[in-house]
Structure formats: structure tokens, C-alpha cells
């Protein structure tokens, strides 16, 4: 009997222990191999976390960031928590301690103490905004538990920043301010929204009772993917020079608006694109919508006399006349119907086509347009890209207005050649002039050179020029350039467009703006477009001032300080062109083609033709 009791006392607990061990072991196997079939009734230990992919960066031609996303901290205060003593939660904080806290917050965040005091006293809300900062030092101080600033809540959020400030605002555009779902609203941010937007990530896992995650039980683990980066052709240094010159010109000419373009003749790349007044993309909602329009592509306007170059191309290419063909300057020529006037200019009885371009004679070009015929003129205009979208990678591009030639009345036959009754955009004009500089080859202008993903894989590469057509022959282009040389010389309409050391092939334009059913007598679009250097073209620069201050009388000029004939392209836009061209040619290291203008002594004994 005694032996049986002993056996029972031993085997009993031992059996229980072994059974328990086996039970625990089986359960562990089930848990580790995830063989549990029934789920807990309330999945309180499961969590889902969504992460936002960072928006892609926009780079310039020099690979400098023009628009990027960064993480900042927003600081809010809970006034109710601020009223409690952090050392003794059951007591109210003393006035001295409260003041000390507010002073600390104000000093660290570098905001006025009064603003902090107002926030702490705002008992209507439990989440009062204080400031936003990207400073790591400030974050380290305010999030330090030893500071006992329990009333502060610090939220991390992503913001879009534009290091260049107001520059390039019309090209880059802006994004909406919703931190969880920012969307491009204009410019490249809008056009390339699909490329720039990051892909969100998801994490779905299980937490332990203590709060830590059971890493091996992650069911879904998809990393957020940053957006792709967009590389532009815009050079921020050229953009800066253009903006500086245009800004100064706008102030001195008292123009309402201005825009400028710099295009590469050989490739069609847009090196600078400026519209003034500009705006801060980070504050886009505080400016009028009219200010946010990119006028270089979204404003169709009557170009005026800059159209005469296109007419000259058509006339020479068709053989209607040559550069030295003499044309009568009489307005009341019975062979022509209601020719435009040339103002108070008194010409000789006849002048050559070359002289007509240099002096910008409306009568001669009106006659040439009629002789050419509306069909041919319209064909040349459209084949040189006018009245057609260029296809540039920006939203909001206008087509312009070049009505079909069959709808032209007889007055328009002589008005269209001088740029009246038709409307084009600045980019179309600059691109047409670039074709003249490129020996008649019309290219598609572009502003995006490549798109690269976050791992460096090139998703899109522009790879050089894209030829649209050959509207004029190379010799025609060369002849027209040679004719245009006289515009920036003595006797031409734009002596002020000259650039020392470089030949300039340009044209002025002074176009009345539409007013009601007629034209305004005081509001003009004053332009100058030039190809430099004319002998071996590299760039085209277009400058336009809209509504420069009007001044036709010497007395008014003396009284107001506004230059006489300020509204004209040669007075208003040409000097800005010269300033821009001079800096851009140096920056691009384009050699002078008239070096003897720069240093005559060095070339005194130079053999003839060395520098031609």
C-alpha cells in the first residue's frame, strides 16, 4: 500500500507537468506556424499605418533644386493642459511658472511673446497653432521631456518649398496646401502631377499587449515610394539675369506687365521664361489669378511689326521680291486697297525691302503682303508655327488666332503682314525667329529634358532637337538675318539693342492693344526680338512690355521723366534686350563675332577676314 501511495504521489504531478509541457509545446507550434483558425473577436492588436510618398523634386539645367519637399514641425498648444502644473497634475499651475513656460516657448520658436500668451489664453480650442519650423535644434529643445512642456503637441508634416522664391513661379506652378494629398495646381507641378506624386505605402501588422509591434507578424509591408524627379532646361542663372533686367525695365518704363524668353536656336530648349509681375508659389492663394498666368504661352496678342520678319521670309522664299527690290512708298497707291499708314515718317519715293525692314515701313510691307497674297502669307505664318500650339510641356498654352486666309477681307491682306488682325503667343514668335536663326529649320521648343525615378532610372529623356519642318530655305533665312542686322545699327529702329562685340539680327514691334472694336491710342505692346550672334546664331531673346507709359510730347517727357516715345519697342524693349543678351552671351561663353568692337587695338594689325 505504501508503495502504491508513493507511486501515485510521484506519477500524478509528473503526469500533469508533462501534459502541461506538451500542451504548451503544441500551442507554441500552432502559434509560430500560424495554424490558428479562429481569429480573436476584436482585433485590437492589429494596426494599419499609411505612409505618404515624398513628392519628386524639380531640377534646373544645372541640376539645382527648384522645387522640393521637406519635413517640418508644426507646434500647437493645448491651453487646458497648459493650465495644469506638470509636477502636480491635481493642481493649477502658478502664474510665475506659466509665464516662464511661455517665455521659453517664445524664445525658442522666435515668435513674439504676445502671440504665445494669446495662444495659451485661447480656451475655445484645445489645439491652438503657434508656429512652423524646420529647425532640428528647436525641435530637440521643445520635445525634450525634461522641459515638461506637456501642453505642446508637435506634428510632423511635409511642405513644398521653392528655394528660388518668386523666380520661375509661372514655370514651376504651385501645389495645394493639403499635407496628406498635395496636388499640383499650375505649371510643371500640374503638368507632371502623375510623375511627381509619390506612391503611398501601407503597413499592416500586429502589436503586443505592451504596445510594441510583433515584427514577424507583419501582414502587409509596402514601402512608400518617392515621386519621380523632373529635370528642366531652364538655367536659373540666365533666368535671374533676365528677371533682373526685365524688372528694372518694367520699373523705368512703368509698364503694367512684361515677359521675356530665351530660346536655344540649335535645340529649341527654353533657357529662361519670365513673366512679371511674379508671385511666391508658396503663397499662391494670396494673389489674383490674373497674376498667375504665364504670359509667354497663355497670352495671345497682336505682335505688330515683329511680324514683318515673317512676311519678309515669305516674300524672299517665294521670290516675290529680293532684299534690294525697290518698292514705292506712296500710301495712296491705286493698285492697293487701303494701305496702312507710316505715321509722320517721310520716306523717299521708293525704298528697298531691306530698308523697309530696318525702318519698319507699314506701307511697303502692306504692299508686299498684298503682292504675296493671303493664301501664301497664311501658309508661311502657320508653317512657321504661328497660330499653332508649340506643344511645350506646360499647361494653359494658347493657340493664337490666325484666321484662315479665305476669311480675310481686303483690309486684312495689308494688315496681317504688319502684325495687325492676327494674334500669337510670345513662344510662337520666339520659335519662329529661332527657325530663321536655324537656317530655316523649325524645332519644337521644350522645357523638360528628362524624368528620373527615385532609384536613378531614366524614365524619359528628350535627347536633342525635334524637327517640326523646314518652312523656308537656308539661303532665305541667311538673307533675312542679314537684312535684320540693320535694325540694331544707326538708322534702324533699335540702335539701343546693339550688343558690343556681337552682331544682332532683330526686329522691333509696337502694337496697339485692342480696345472695344478698335485700337487704343495709348496702350501698346512694345517688343523686341533678336537673334544673337547673327553670323552664327545661338540664342533668340524676346522681350515684351505691355502698356508701357505713353509719351509722345517732349514737354510731357520733361515733366514726367518718361522717355519720349517710351511706348515703342525700340525705346522700351530694345535696351532690355541688349542688357539680357550681353549677360547671357558671356554666361554661355559664346565668342564675340565682332571682337574688334571690344578691343580695337588688339585687332589693328589683324589680317582681313580673321574675325569675320
Amino acid at each position, binding site marked *: 500500500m505504501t508503495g502504491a501511495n508513493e507511486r501515485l504521489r510521484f506519477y500524478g504531478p509528473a503526469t500533469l507537468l*508533462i501534459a502541461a*509541457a506538451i500542451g504548451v509545446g503544441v500551442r507554441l507550434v500552432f502559434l509560430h506556424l500560424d495554424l490558428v483558425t479562429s481569429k480573436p473577436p476584436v482585433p485590437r492588436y492589429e494596426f494599419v499605418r499609411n505612409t505618404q510618398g515624398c513628392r519628386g523634386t524639380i531640377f534646373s539645367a544645372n541640376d539645382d533644386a527648384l522645387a*522640393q519637399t521637406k519635413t517640418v514641425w508644426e507646434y500647437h498648444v493645448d491651453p487646458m493642459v497648459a493650465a495644469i502644473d506638470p509636477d502636480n497634475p491635481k493642481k493649477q499651475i502658478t502664474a510665475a511658472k506659466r509665464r516662464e513656460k511661455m517665455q521659453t516657448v517664445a524664445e525658442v520658436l522666435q515668435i513674439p511673446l504676445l502671440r504665445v500668451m494669446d495662444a495659451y489664453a485661447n480656451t475655445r480650442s484645445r489645439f491652438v497653432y503657434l508656429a512652423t519650423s524646420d529647425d532640428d535644434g528647436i525641435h530637440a529643445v521643445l520635445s525634450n521631456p525634461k522641459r515638461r512642456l506637456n501642453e505642446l503637441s508637435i506634428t510632423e508634416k511635409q511642405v513644398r*518649398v521653392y*528655394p528660388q522664391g518668386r523666380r520661375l513661379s509661372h514655370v514651376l506652378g504651385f501645389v495645394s496646401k493639403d499635407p496628406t494629398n498635395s496636388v499640383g495646381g499650375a505649371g510643371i507641378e500640374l503638368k507632371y502631377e502623375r510623375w511627381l506624386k509619390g506612391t503611398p505605402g501601407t503597413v499592416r501588422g500586429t502589436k503586443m499587449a505592451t504596445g510594441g509591434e510583433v*515584427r514577424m507578424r507583419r501582414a502587409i509591408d509596402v514601402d512608400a515610394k518617392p515621386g519621380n524627379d523632373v529635370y528642366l532646361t531652364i538655367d536659373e542663372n540666365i533666368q*535671374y539675369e533676365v528677371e533682373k533686367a526685365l524688372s528694372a525695365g518694367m520699373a523705368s518704363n512703368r509698364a503694367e506687365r512684361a515677359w521675356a524668353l530665351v530660346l536655344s536656336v540649335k535645340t529649341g530648349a527654353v533657357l529662361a521664361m519670365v513673366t512679371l509681375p511674379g508671385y511666391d508659389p508658396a503663397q499662391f492663394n494670396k494673389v489674383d489669378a490674373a497674376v498667375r498666368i504665364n504670359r509667354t504661352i497663355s497670352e495671345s496678342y497682336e505682335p505688330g511689326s515683329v511680324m514683318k520678319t515673317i512676311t519678309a521670309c515669305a516674300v524672299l522664299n517665294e521670290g516675290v521680291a529680293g532684299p534690294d527690290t525697290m518698292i514705292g512708298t506712296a500710301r495712296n497707291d491705286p493698285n492697293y486697297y487701303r494701305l496702312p499708314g507710316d505715321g509722320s515718317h517721310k520716306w523717299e519715293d521708293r525704298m528697298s525691302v531691306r530698308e523697309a525692314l530696318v525702318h519698319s515701313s507699314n506701307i511697303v510691307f502692306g504692299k508686299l503682303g498684298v503682292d504675296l497674297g493671303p493664301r501664301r502669307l497664311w501658309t508661311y505664318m502657320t508653317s512657321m508655327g504661328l497660330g499653332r500650339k508649340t506643344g511645350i510641356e506646360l499647361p494653359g498654352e494658347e493657340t493664337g488666332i490666325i484666321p484662315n486666309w479665305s476669311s480675310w477681307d481686303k483690309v486684312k491682306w495689308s494688315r496681317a503682314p504688319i502684325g495687325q488682325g492676327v494674334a500669337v503667343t510670345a513662344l510662337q514668335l520666339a520659335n519662329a525667329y529661332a527657325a530663321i536663326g536655324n537656317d530655316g529649320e523649325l524645332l519644337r521648343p521644350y522645357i523638360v529634358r528628362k524624368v528620373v525615378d527615385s532609384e536613378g532610372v531614366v524614365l524619359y529623356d528628350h535627347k536633342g532637337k525635334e524637327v517640326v519642318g523646314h518652312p523656308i530655305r537656308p539661303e532665305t533665312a541667311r538673307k533675312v538675318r542679314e537684312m535684320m542686322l540693320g535694325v540694331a545699327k544707326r538708322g534702324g529702329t533699335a540702335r539701343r539693342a546693339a550688343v558690343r562685340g556681337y552682331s544682332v539680327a532683330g526686329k522691333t514691334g509696337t502694337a496697339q492693344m485692342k480696345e472695344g472694336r478698335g485700337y487704343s491710342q495709348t496702350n501698346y505692346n512694345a517688343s523686341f526680338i533678336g537673334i544673337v550672334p547673327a553670323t552664327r546664331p545661338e540664342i533668340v531673346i524676346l522681350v515684351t512690355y505691355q502698356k508701357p507709359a505713353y509719351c509722345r510730347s517732349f514737354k510731357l517727357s520733361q515733366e514726367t521723366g518718361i522717355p519720349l516715345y517710351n511706348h515703342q519697342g525700340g525705346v522700351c524693349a530694345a535696351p532690355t534686350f541688349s542688357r539680357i543678351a550681353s549677360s547671357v552671351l558671356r554666361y554661355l561663353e559664346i565668342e*564675340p563675332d565682332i571682337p574688334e568692337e571690344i578691343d580695337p587695338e*588688339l585687332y589693328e594689325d589683324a589680317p582681313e577676314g580673321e574675325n569675320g
Partner: protein
Amino acid sequence: MRRNRRVKKNSRFTSGATGIASLIVSSFIMLMIYWSLDARCTSIMREIGKAENTMKVLDAEHGREMARWNGMKTPERLDEKILRFGLAMGVPRADQVVRMMSNGRPAPGQIAVARAQAKKPMENMALAIPSKPRRSSRR
């Protein structure tokens, strides 16, 4: 003579007990091993979590630094600094630029060097600094 042998009454019991005790001890040891592995897994889990957070923080810091740096080197800022120190610097013309190679010689094909050489032939391969042009006597 028959030797008296003492036979243990519970000998079978004893050998059974040893086996069971071994089983219990080995279960205990396995439990300890499991517990230590689990603790190690939990520790690695925490390290991964920390590393993920650190990476997130560093990424954000990198973004902020890049933004700060890009804001510092805008053309406006550079101009401002140049003016502040009274340097009055401008961009040179193409024919005023001479690029040198690491061997101390000018890079080939430069117009400024070619013009200097045309005026004064080089005696050696070092860069010939152009002399001041002589004024013509035909004035």
C-alpha cells in the same frame, strides 16, 4: 549456502522515475531555450523598429538640409554676397577666359590663347601671356 540478496521493493518504480525526471528536466531546458530565443527575437524586432525610425528621421533631416543649401546658393544670394564684399565681379566674355589643364598648360582650342600666340609666338609650351598691344604709329 544461498546468499541472501536484498531486493529493492521498488526497483521498477525507481527506473521509471528517472525517465520521467529526465523528461521533465529536458522539457524545462527546452523551455529555457525557447524563452531565450524569443527574447532575442523581441530584441531584434525592437532594433529593427528603431532603425526604421532612425532612417525616417535621417531622411527628413537630409531633405531639410538640402532645402537649406539650395536656398543658400541661389543667384540672388550669391550676388548679394559679392556686392556685400565690394567685389563687383561680372561674368567674363568667352575671349577673356583661359582654361588650364592639370599639367599647367592651357586647354587646346581656346580663342584667347590663339590670339595671344598670334601676337607673340610662344617660346615654350607654357602659357604665353599676351603683351600689351603696341599703339600704331599711323594715328
